[in-house]
């Protein structure tokens, strides 16, 4: 079963172009209703192009003529959902609240452990995971904090 041959259904194909259509309409609304239209010339042109292209793509999607893209089947969504949740938690909560280095260490080991096929209940597995996380974070710290002197935000910790 090759993924290339699998094409998302008509309904799914409509979703992304409906999104761009909505975006185009919103941009058009924002840029055609301002008092001073001069700085909005380009956004106006872009919104018109976006609406036109989205409409064409939508028409093709309804006819079933869009033959690119595999879509997102439910089982795939379920497999990536925990990963995306960890990424969001890391970037939006852990990194700013705990500090970039602490947050990153937690984000790294959580994401890694979640998708690591080695057994969770083995001491060896955890030893490897911790060692890799510590090693990686040390390199990041050496490069960004010591060598390049990037001042990252601090939270509760570093």
């Amino acid at each position, binding site marked *: 079963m090759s993924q290339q041959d699998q094409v998302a259904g008509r309904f799914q194909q409509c979703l992304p172009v409906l999104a761009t259509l909505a975006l185009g309409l919103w941009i058009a609304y924002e840029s055609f209703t301002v008092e001073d239209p001069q700085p909005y010339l380009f956004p106006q042109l872009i919104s018109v192009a976006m609406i036109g292209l989205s409409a064409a793509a939508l028409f093709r999607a309804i006819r079933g003529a869009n033959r690119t893209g595999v879509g997102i089947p439910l089982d795939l969504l379920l497999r990536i959902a925990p990963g995306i949740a960890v990424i969001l938690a890391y970037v939006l909560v852990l990194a700013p609240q705990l500090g970039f*280095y*602490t947050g990153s*260490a*937690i984000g790294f*080991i*959580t994401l890694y452990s979640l998708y690591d096929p080695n057994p969770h209940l083995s001491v060896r597995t*955890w030893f490897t*995971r*911790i060692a890799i*996380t*510590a090693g990686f*974070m*040390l390199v990041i*710290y050496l490069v960004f*904090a*010591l060598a390049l*002197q990037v*001042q990252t935000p601090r939270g509760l*910790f*570093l």
Partner: protein
Amino acid sequence: MSKYVTRFGMLAVLAAAMALPASAGEYPDRPVSLMVAYSPGGATDFQARIVTMVAANDEYLGQPIVIINKPGAGGKVGWNKFASGSKKDGYELAAYNVPHFIAQSIKFKTKYNVENLEPIANWGADPAVFVVNRDSPFNTMKDVQDYAKANPGKITVSGAGLFVGHHIAYLQIEKALGEKLKYVPHKGGAPAMKSVLGGQVMAGVNNLSDAYRSRDSLKILGIADVQRNEEFLPDVPTLAELGFDVDDSSVNFRGVMVRKGTPQEVIDTLAAKVPEMFKNKRVAKQMKAGGSPLRVMTRDEVKAMWAKREEFLKKLLAGL
């Protein structure tokens, strides 16, 4: 469980590496940061780096000053963040550019204005100059005025953006000439200078320091300041000398400030030591080598200068 072990392991490693002194002594007892609202490598950035390079000497702060760049939207992003989110403990300083930040606080909805910021000291003053290409038919400001009289609105003048020093100098010059010109805003001083050198525009308003570096391909017709620049361009007259009513309102002043609410004793310490640091011999030598005019002003002088600019700009920008 193991996750916690890692976390604390990590922390221990990082803390050891940082070796931060935690003792609370006299201010400052740890490095101080200076936020620059422009990109690294820009004029404000490299001048800030030069004037703070001796901060760690015992006679000054005794602690190094670390530059943090937060560029974006002509400085608005950095200053907005500074005025709304920085700590008021004296460990977070920022560099100011007058008249930019004052003009922006008048023209735009910004979180900063002269009221919620406290000046510490000024290190530099870069006046605007009126330049034309070496091949230009204009040789004096009088030529420009005559041409503008015959062709109103036909002389294109480049400058770095709207409501920055260049634009303000342009507005003053246009008013003083009594003739219409055409301002072409660019994305910064360098592209604006490029347009003059490349002949895309007929004239330009630019920084004295940048014009000085390109002086072989330019004619510098006048300085928008109250005095000539003896150090770099002693032969170029001020616009006022030429009979045009242009003062030093557009001069780009650069200096250090803190947020309002910073403890008074911290402000006093900084206000006493920072101007001395700017006067350091090594700093002066390096600034001159970089073609940047040094002008050290104390906290009180800067306060008066800010107030004067604020008043002037409110009037000038009211009609726009």
